[in-house]
């Protein structure tokens, strides 16, 4: 019987690793019609005419649609619920975000015409015959440039391109501290734009049943129920009961598949139009152009310290590149998690100001960490820089500012409540496991080989299962069939993260159920009535809570039924080891048997919330080696000691750490989305130029654990999905700077590409 804390191999793996996964495209049976989208070749242009006659007549064409057709049908727009204001106090403008471009196109890849044909090839051929006349304008893709006077305007309704101004913390109190602070460290930091590049690109199959008036959408998503609500309420204006969303296996999500997309609505709408099942699958190039992208911030951060190095206050002005349109979640990453700039430290005052900026680029949206790595990057770079300016040891500086266990719970000046943790202990273990002190010898060895070596440390802390106020519930159904087998109907979504294995462990542990008699079902809104979904490191917190609460209710219900079955009084019943027993006798009945005898009576649906969000935290240490002749920077060692609370399955947590670290290191060392400044064209439009990390770019990661279970949920779990990325972003840059500082380098921005590192060394040589 597997228990909480066992490193049980993932039940999902055999299926997924032997090619038996079932992804969106695997449902195709060859009878579907195909949708191909004609996308904008310009970053900014007015559409003056669309001519489709030749294309309509092309072989196999079933329908060609433009925004005019959608508008005529009353098809709705994507909208965002964030209630943000502009700097002048007016409500922010919500640029019309339709399924196809309206009168203008606003980024390269903006979809303009949908072509539906018998085959994908025919749709591609027909799309080439569509003639769109554009009147193109100068675009702006960089958020800082977009704020310059005279910059091209993305939307006439947003003069100056500043969509909103969001403030967090206390400006007056913070500015007052800065005014009198003995030392202020300031940095201007750029956090690059990146994209998720899941192995399975976005794909969707839409069908409409004219007899029942029902729609079915099949697509890999993190949030099937939310997607259903958006598509039925906002876009198609149909009753939710007439739409079923099926999310099969998801071949990589990373936050990118947390948003609804135009193509998902288009296949449904087009299916009704052409009365055929309509399939769409993004090509790699389309994915690069049209998947919602991540990060892209320019941040001025400041840290105030007293003469002894005590942190007094932190403040920041951040510019977030939103892209041209506001997807439902676009305003989230640049604003929601800025509280992370407090780090694990005792800091009295803080103020952060975020300006959201429109540019001629695809929308940004959550991407693993969604603002958490960015915030941690700011505070940890500032701390490292302050140590350098004050000629203090960066570890000592952190240590003397860390919150201690007796200071918790602690409300930060940004409103987050750190409920528990032992930061000094995690830090000490991190230094120890990484052999921090052995660095000197390793540096000597590198130098003997003509290489530079740097060492860095970063302490990460991030909110999981948030937000701080208004964290969301999860739904869970547990059903017993006539054979006494258990079916878990999860409102969370399995996105390759092994949730099913974890739920089975929890239920085995709590109810004594046999893992092989439990099945977990998710990702089908008809089978699972209600759900929130998987994002923001929340699943073990939110869904885990729901599983445990459901289990408690089953025990409660079961006691009455067991008392009947065993002809005893309910107060004499106890539950242990998977069976109900009459206290003091050997009379017992197993839960499986009791369920089989009472068809359906033990089944239960719950929607439960944790007590509150949690704060996973960790100490990341890494070392890099740089070839000064070429600028090539190699990650040589990486160690993290993490407190993710109760570890349900250490193997899965390690896997999440590995993936999270790789994703963070990828951004620091090589990945970035680059647009041409003048034309707005995507320069990194394929894997020839967008550099994805490979396994051999990494050393073996050393992942340690120092768990302090939280009381915020019955499992004590804190969330592990984003933790690796949060720490990786700052620590790799800090280690690289450590290697370069002896050469006079004071600052470097990601990505630390060979040429950038080499150029930085040249500038400082001369």
């Amino acid at each position, binding site marked *: 019987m597997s228990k909480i804390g066992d490193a049980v191999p993932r039940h999902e793996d055999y299926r997924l690793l032997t090619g038996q996964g079932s992804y969106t495209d695997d449902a195709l049976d060859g009878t579907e019609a195909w949708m191909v989208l004609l996308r904008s070749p310009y970053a900014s242009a007015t559409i003056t005419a669309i001519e489709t006659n030749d294309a309509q007549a092309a072989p196999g064409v079933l329908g060609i649609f433009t925004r005019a057709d959608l508008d005529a049908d009353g098809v709705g727009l994507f909208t965002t619920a964030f209630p943000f204001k502009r700097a002048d106090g007016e409500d922010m403008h919500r640029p019309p975000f339709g399924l196809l471009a309206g009168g203008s196109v606003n980024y390269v890849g903006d979809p303009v015409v949908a072509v539906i044909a018998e085959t994908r*090839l025919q749709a*591609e051929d027909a799309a080439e015959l569509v003639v769109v006349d554009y009147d193109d304008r100068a675009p702006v893709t960089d958020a800082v440039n977009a704020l310059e006077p005279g910059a091209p305007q993305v939307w006439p309704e947003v003069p100056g391109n500043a969509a909103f101004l969001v403030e967090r913390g206390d400006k007056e109190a913070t500015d007052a501290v800065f005014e009198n602070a003995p030392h202020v460290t300031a940095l201007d930091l750029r956090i690059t734009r990146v994209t998720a590049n899941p192995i399975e690109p976005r794909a969707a199959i839409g069908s409409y049943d004219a007899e029942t008036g029902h729609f079915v959408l099949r697509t890999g998503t993190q949030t099937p129920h939310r997607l259903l609500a958006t598509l039925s309420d906002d876009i198609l204006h149909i009753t939710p009961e007439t739409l079923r969303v099926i999310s099969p296996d998801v071949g990589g999500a990373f936050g990118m598949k947390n948003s609804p997309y135009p193509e998902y609505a288009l296949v449904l709408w087009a299916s009704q139009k052409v009365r055929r099942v309509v399939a769409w699958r993004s090509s790699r190039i389309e994915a690069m152009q049209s998947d919602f992208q991540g990060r892209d911030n320019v941040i001025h951060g400041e840290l105030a310290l007293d003469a002894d190095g005590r942190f007094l206050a932190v403040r920041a002005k951040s510019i977030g590149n939103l892209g041209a349109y506001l997807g439902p979640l676009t305003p989230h990453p640049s604003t929601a998690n800025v509280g992370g700039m407090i780090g694990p430290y005792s800091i009295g005052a803080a103020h952060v100001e975020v300006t959201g900026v429109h540019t001629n680029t695809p929308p940004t949206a959550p991407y693993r960490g969604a603002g958490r790595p960015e915030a941690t990057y700011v505070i940890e770079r500032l701390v490292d820089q302050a140590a350098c300016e004050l000629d203090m040891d960066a570890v000592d500086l952190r240590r003397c500012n860390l919150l201690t266990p007796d200071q918790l719970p602690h409300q930060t000046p940004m409103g987050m409540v750190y409920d528990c943790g032992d930061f000094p202990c995690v830090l000490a273990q991190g230094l120890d496991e990484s052999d921090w002190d052995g660095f000197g010898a390793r540096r000597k060895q590198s130098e003997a080989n003509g290489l530079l070596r740097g060492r860095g440390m970063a302490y990460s802390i991030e909110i999981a299962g948030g937000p701080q106020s208004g964290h969301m519930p999860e739904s869970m159904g547990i059903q017993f069939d006539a054979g006494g087998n258990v079916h878990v109907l999860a409102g969370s979504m399995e996105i390759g993260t092994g949730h099913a294995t974890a739920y089975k462990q929890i239920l085995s542990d709590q109810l004594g159920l046999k893992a092989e008699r439990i099945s977990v079902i998710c990702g089908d809104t008809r089978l699972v009535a209600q759900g929130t979904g998987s994002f923001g490191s929340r699943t073990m917190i939110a869904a885990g809570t729901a599983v445990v609460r459901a289990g408690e209710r089953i025990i409660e219900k079961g006691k009455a039924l067991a008392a009947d079955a065993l002809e005893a009084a309910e107060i004499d019943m106890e539950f242990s080891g998977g069976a109900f027993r009459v206290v003091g006798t050997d009379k017992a009945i197993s839960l499986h048997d009791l369920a089989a005898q009472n068809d359906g009576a033990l089944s239960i649906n719950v929607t439960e919330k944790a007590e509150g969000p949690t704060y996973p935290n960790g100490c990341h240490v890494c070392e890099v080696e740089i070839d000064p*002749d*070429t600028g090539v920077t190699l990650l040589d060692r990486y160690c993290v000691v993490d407190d993710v609370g109760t570890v349900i399955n250490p193997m899965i947590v390690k896997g999440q750490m590995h993936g999270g670290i790789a994703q963070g290191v990828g951004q620091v060392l090589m990945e970035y989305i680059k647009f041409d400044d003048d034309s707005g064209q995507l320069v*990194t439009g394929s894997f*020839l*130029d*967008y550099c994805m990390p490979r396994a051999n770019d990494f050393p073996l990661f050393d992942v340690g654990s120092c768990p302090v279970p939280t009381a915020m949920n019955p499992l004590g779990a804190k969330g592990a999905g984003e933790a690796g990325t949060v720490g990786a972003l700052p620590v790799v840059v800090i280690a690289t700077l450590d290697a370069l500082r002896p050469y006079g380098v004071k600052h470097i921005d990601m990505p630390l590409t060979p*040429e950038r590192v*080499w150029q930085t060394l040249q500038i400082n040589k001369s």
Partner: protein
Amino acid sequence: MYAFEYRKAASTEDAESGFTAADDASFLAGGMTILPTLKQRLAQPSDLIDLSGIESLSGISVEGGTVTIGAMTCHADVAASADVQSAIPALAALANLIGDPQVRNRGTIGGSIANNDPAADYPGAVVGLNATVHTTKREIAADDFFIGLFETALDEGELITKVVFPVPEKAAYRKFPNPASRYAIVGAFVAKTSDGIRVAITGAGPTVFRVTEMEADLSESFSADAIKDIAIPQDDLNSDLHASAEYRAHLIGVMASRAVGDCS
């Protein structure tokens, strides 16, 4: 991808006559370049003439101080060949640096040099070793073969049959890969041959080129030090997202010095 006729040639004559008969044919070797081009609708040949059935085009032989590699020999076979490894280890090592295992098992030396991608590796070895390219019509010296960006001395429909490499005294190849594609940003092939020292640089310019100044200095004294002060003019070098002309010029020096070091 646009529709095209597919033909599998049985012999070089068959391939050539198929080519002449068609409107606008292309040869298909490993397909590692041409297939992605077709998929992106960047080319529209009327016919693809598949060379994979022509046995005489594949294979490796070493004799009389030369290594001969058939045009259809894939990179993985060159990399794994014990004969190449012992005769010209630098050539086997170069083949092993191309792309990834899938690419090495499909891509061919004939396709690579016919395509003459400025970032391809093989042109470095062909020029660095002063190889001879054999076609169905003639023999072309390495120095005459690579003309410019994606341009070679091949005529329309002229088929490469093999490449003959003289075995050098010593040779080494150093590659600075593009971090994304792993093609060469700068590849330096240095060889000590009976005809003298050759330094061929691929990746850095529109096509492979020799650095005669380095060759002259290395002939005086074959050491990394001898070329460390040679400044490479940036004017004709490529400049892109991954490497400016300035950086490429610098890397030529670094990679060539390291290759010289490997030879000693």
